[in-house]
């Protein structure tokens, strides 16, 4: 039973994905974070200063940790139960069980802009906008179905005579990319159209997917035997020695001398466009189109070779010298996980990004750049798969942003993703070339933890001239 419990750990600590390469709030048109927004749609480069620079620690950070089944407050109360000096309380457990979804997911996204240099070439009206970037991404996602939790907390008696399926899915990806983006705005009648593209060279540090894995536990009607069946299937590659990881040899997980050669390699392309008409703008991006391939010597296929493990109790064997007992409860070890070298190609996970913005009260700043005092709009991100930081569940943000002299912005939004509804807020300012912005989409986690299922923030610090 202990092993089963350990399985829950990643479900709450998994470092997961974000919804794109940057925070959804950055799709809100703002002169402060347009450089960061260009990672969701490279057409946003047009809103950059003539020169904008991020060099760590002057960087962009996007972080989100979320789940779809327990509130932040409930998760905290659940973890507080680890303190054995405090009275035990089952309320957090009831909350967990009451809010279980059919598929319960915990995911984490971290995107770090380590270097980004944006610049314009040509006259302002006809300028080509360029962006050079180095970014780090870490995504993870762990999903398990509701019956798994019901089994762990409620026991197997409720499932006698039937199979209870676990359907575990774990995936993880860490990669660095080198990007080169370009956009140009053209005028067509009263429309301003900005097509853009970013090419990316991808270096995968590690990837793991367990696609198609399924495990089931069958309990005999009268409890005479338990049978663990099914298969764990997956692929992995990168600097981690997954063979050792699976065998539990955690002392030699990294091959330091081979680190660079072990990187997965690939290319990616982000495309986008922005169309502006008077005080309205519409942006559309298709980002994270790309794949990373890990060479055969640095990648493995993982599979369990023992499809059925039956437990009928300890075997006793009697003799004059006593009764001997043999046998072990079925565990994941008994499924005999094996690895086999095999090249591994994995897609980043294409995402569609949309933004529609309506501006009110047009003004111009000191450099004659137009802006709107009041901005309302909708941002939308949706993936084509459920892997890494991609989700087919749409992520929507309905926002308002106030822009003061193109130097100070403050905004709020209502955002929705899967079973998560939350409020967000952001603030940004520009002073003497320094640009700073902070934002979150998980205000409830701050003001009312029981109404939020996520921890989310973005941070931007850069220079713009």
């Amino acid at each position, binding site marked *: 039973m202990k092993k089963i419990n350990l399985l829950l750990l990643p479900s709450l600590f998994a470092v997961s994905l974000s919804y794109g390469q940057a925070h959804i709030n950055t799709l809100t048109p703002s002169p402060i974070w347009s450089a960061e927004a260009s990672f969701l749609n490279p057409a946003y480069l047009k809103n950059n200063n003539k020169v904008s620079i991020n060099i760590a620690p002057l960087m962009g950070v996007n972080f989100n940790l979320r789940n779809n089944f327990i509130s932040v407050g409930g998760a905290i109360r659940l973890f507080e139960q680890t303190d054995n000096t405090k009275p035990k309380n089952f309320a957090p457990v*009831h909350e967990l069980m009451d809010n279980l979804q059919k598929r319960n997911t915990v995911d984490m996204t971290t995107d770090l802009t380590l270097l980004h240099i944006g610049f314009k070439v040509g006259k302002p009206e006809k300028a080509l906008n360029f962006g050079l970037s180095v970014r780090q991404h870490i995504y993870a996602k762990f999903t398990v179905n509701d019956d798994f939790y019901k089994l762990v907390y409620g026991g197997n008696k409720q499932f006698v005579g039937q199979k209870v399926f676990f359907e575990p899915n774990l995936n993880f990806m860490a990669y660095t990319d080198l990007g080169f983006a370009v956009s140009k705005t053209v005028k067509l009648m009263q429309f301003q159209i900005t097509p853009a593209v970013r090419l990316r060279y991808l270096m995968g540090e590690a990837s793991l997917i367990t696609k198609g894995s399924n495990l089931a536990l069958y*309990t005999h009607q009268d409890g005479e035997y338990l049978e663990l069946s099914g298969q764990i299937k997956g692929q992995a590659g990168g600097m981690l020695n997954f063979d050792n990881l699976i065998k539990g040899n955690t002392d030699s997980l990294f091959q330091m001398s081979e680190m660079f050669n072990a990187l997965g390699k690939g290319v990616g392309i982000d495309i986008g466009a922005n169309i502006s008409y008077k005080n309205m703008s519409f942006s559309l991006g298709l980002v994270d189109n790309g794949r990373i391939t890990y060479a055969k010597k640095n990648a493995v296929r993982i599979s369990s070779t023992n499809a059925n493990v039956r437990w*009928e109790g300890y075997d006793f064997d009697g*003799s004059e010298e006593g009764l001997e007992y043999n046998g072990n409860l079925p565990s994941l070890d008994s499924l005999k996980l094996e690895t086999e070298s095999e090249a591994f190609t994995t897609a980043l996970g294409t995402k569609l990004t949309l933004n529609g913005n309506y501006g009110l009260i047009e003004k111009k700043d000191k450099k004659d750049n137009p802006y709107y005092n009041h901005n309302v709009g909708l941002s939308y991100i949706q993936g084509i798969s459920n892997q890494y930081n991609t989700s087919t569940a749409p992520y929507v943000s309905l926002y308002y942003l106030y822009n003061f002299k193109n130097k100070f912005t*403050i905004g709020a939004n209502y955002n929705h993703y899967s079973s998560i509804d939350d409020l967000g807020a952001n603030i940004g300012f520009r002073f003497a070339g320094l640009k700073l912005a902070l934002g979150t989409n998980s205000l*409830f986690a701050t003001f*009312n933890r029981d*109404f939020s299922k996520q921890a989310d923030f973005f941070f931007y610090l850069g220079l713009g001239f």
Partner: protein
Amino acid sequence: MKFNPILILMLIVSILLSQASCKKKTYDDTPLASQWILPILKGNITPLTITTLKNKKLNLIVTGDDLGISTNSPTSSPIPLSFLNVKSDDIETNNLIESIVLDTCLIDVKITNNFPVTILAGTKIKFKQAGSLMEIMNFTLDNNLPMGQNKTFELDLSGKTIGYKIIVEIEELKIDAYSNETFSEDLTFDFLFKNVSVHELNIFTNQEYLNMRDTAEFDGSAIEFNEFDNKITDSTVNATFRYTSSNGLPINSYFQTYFLDDFNQVIDSIFTPNADMPGAEYDGTTFEKITESKGTVFVPKSRIEKIKNAKKIVYVLELNSKGYSGAFITIKKEQKFDLKIVGDLKLILNSNIFN
């Protein structure tokens, strides 16, 4: 009225946040019962089990003293020596056994010569029935065994009939001539029964029982539930053990599990009084019908609390043939006794699954 967007924004956010605060659902602290139905024990008693011959071992040691040779001062013999009826020991089964007809039975034999002299070919080992002293089989060493060396071989008792006890005798031991040697170390004969299968078994009726037991460490404190919480009652924490047996042997049996404290005192036992499983029905000495038995034991919270103090657990399985007619009764190799124990456990898991 002047339009102040920041004020409006703050107002909207405040309203939404206050709405969210009102929506919190409260959950009570009722302990969550977890019900597990688990197979705990299974096994069978076969004619082989009753013989207790499986993995039976015998270690027979011959010293210099056994041969009348000093073990602490040098001696010499200019000629080879031969010793008769040097030493013997018994391989015992148990008091239930009248006779065993073996299907297969191999005995691994290892002779280790730590004498300061060569053991000569012609050394003889004999297996005899206890009581009648009738020879079952014998073995003669066909090559010399030099000092410091060992020899391993198999003896085959397949097809033989043996009684409740076998006598193993070193009938003749031959050693080479030696000069000025001290017999400070021993000559050892190790016997191990393997690949034993029984064709037929005769057991005495109304004889003594065969008692098999095992003692293991047991940490009762690992059973976690907050017994001081008055919300946790017998309806939320208890255990039910169900046993089922199918007995095709003319052997009555009972199974019991005792929990012992630090002072080896019995705190509690699972079955009250015992899990009794009567033997098969016989018409005289003729097998008639398998006897099915089953029973259920309910262990309430109060008894689980007692078991939390246990440090050891003792399993006892007792077999006897009381109540059957005749002097002895025959068991065929196909007959057996199956036993299964299933636990139906109602627990309060720790409120934190991450502990």
